């Protein structure tokens, strides 16, 4: 398919950029692995005095964080870099150039550049996760691993859609170039178990629901503690939010006005 070819070409370009900007790659890879390690250390510190919290044991919480790094490693590699570019494009009025190309504009805004340095984080986190699963004696099965992959994919789609919808707002509010930082910080809440948010007011919990099920649900499925309702909810949300992102984006483009220099 045409978009597949395009995607492959773009990946190839990203790879060759790594070779050119080697220092950049090394620095980013170190940072992202550093953040991964930091996230694990912080959860260990936070749970040093409480062996069980929110129905999760300390081991499970640590593994949750590691698996969060697995999922986020993929997300940061393939999608996140595009959002920074998104902000720049809107801010500098370069959306015209995007719209003039015979390629779907949402595709161009979402899957155009990649920061493959985060793949290292994904790799290390995956290896570490496997190691922890073994030494913590977490009961996983082939089926649960399969569900983990399926649900993680849905999670990435959901995370992408939410961020994309919020960023589309910058077509109207062009000054909010730092919105992506806020979105990333808020969606970081997903690294904590969903149960942690359950005793907030119902209203707040409802708003946060799409975010908090992003990591918890696939991980619980992996542990074979998965809840069917959560899983269905995640898949439904992924589908719904993705559709909204598409519709909303097309709607926003009509409002886009730029002054070509």
């Amino acid at each position, binding site marked *: 398919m045409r978009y597949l070819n395009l995607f492959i070409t773009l990946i190839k370009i990203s790879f060759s950029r790594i070779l050119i900007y080697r220092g950049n790659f090394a620095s980013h890879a170190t940072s992202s692995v550093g*953040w991964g390690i930091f996230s694990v250390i912080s959860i260990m510190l936070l749970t040093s005095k409480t062996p069980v919290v929110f129905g999760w044991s300390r081991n499970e919480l640590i593994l949750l964080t590691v698996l969060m790094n697995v999922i986020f490693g993929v997300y940061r590699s393939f999608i996140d870099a595009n959002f920074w570019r998104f902000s720049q494009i809107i801010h500098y009025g370069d959306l015209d150039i995007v719209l003039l190309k015979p390629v779907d504009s949402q595709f161009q805004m979402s899957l155009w550049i990649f920061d493959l340095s985060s793949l290292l984080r994904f790799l290390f986190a995956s290896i570490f996760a496997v190691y922890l699963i073994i030494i913590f004696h977490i009961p996983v099965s082939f089926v649960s691993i399969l569900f983990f992959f399926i649900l993680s994919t849905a999670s990435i789609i959901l995370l992408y859609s939410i961020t994309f919808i919020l960023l589309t707002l910058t077509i109207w509010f062009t000054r909010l170039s730092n919105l992506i930082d806020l979105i990333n910080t808020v969606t970081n809440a997903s690294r904590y178990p969903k149960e942690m948010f359950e005793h907030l007011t119902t209203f707040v919990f409802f708003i946060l629901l799409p975010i908090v099920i992003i990591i918890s649900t696939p991980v619980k499925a992996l542990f074979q503690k998965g809840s069917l309702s959560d899983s269905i909810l995640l898949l439904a949300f992924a589908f719904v939010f993705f559709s909204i992102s598409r519709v909303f984006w097309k709607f926003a483009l009509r409002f886009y006005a730029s002054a070509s220099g």
Partner: protein
Amino acid sequence: MRYFRIFFLQLQHAIEARSLSVVWFLTSLTTPLLMLIFWSGATAAAGGRIFSWSYSNFATYYLFIALASSMLTAHIEEDVAFEDINKGNLSQYILKPFPYYTSKFLLELPWRLFQGSLAISGIVIVALFFKNLVSVTSSPIILLLAIVIAILAFILSFTFKMILGLLAFWFTEISGVMNVNEIIFSIASGTLIPLEFFPNNLRTLFEILPFSYMIYYPIIAFLGKLNTTSLLQVILMQLLWIFIFSLVYKFTWAKGRKTFTAVGL
């Protein structure tokens, strides 16, 4: 007198870009809020108190973390590294008749004040509804010393961040260094977890490092957890670190200027 006018101009800019400030403020609010939610469950699971901290203690602490992050932490290093050094904007600062440090200081201050005022209003609102959460010391002497500590904390943070930004003179990939700094900072300054929770040897380390004097000590000073003697000791440490950083800054700036080349377009 002209410094005052320049400050005013920068303040106008900051107010014009107020939507950016609001977003930054909300960003610095998010992590403490998340920590609060975490601790509410954790304290419940541990029977009401962890390390003798009750949930309302945590709440107060993290509220003030939010304030300190908005108001006392300088964010000038990215501007220095990316805009001035990498993109060459430094030239216009060198041409000015006052030091680079001063220009950046006057640039940074309005943003801190603006976001700080957002945070303070937030705390005031919370204090109105949840009186027990916001228990600031009532002793005027301690309050005065706490304010001094806060001001010194800002100067400390600012000077440190300037040095960090200036490293871009030598490192083309400065973002790695900045990321590492952020990680160390969140642990050592008490932003992630109150420093009390750390084992003793780490605590001693944090007391030597400058980070705790940027966030942790101003907060617990305002919360009234230190007596006058301790407060004076804190101030002494702050002054010591400011002195060290000033020397490092002067050295870095002098050396860095020589290596700086800007290309006109």
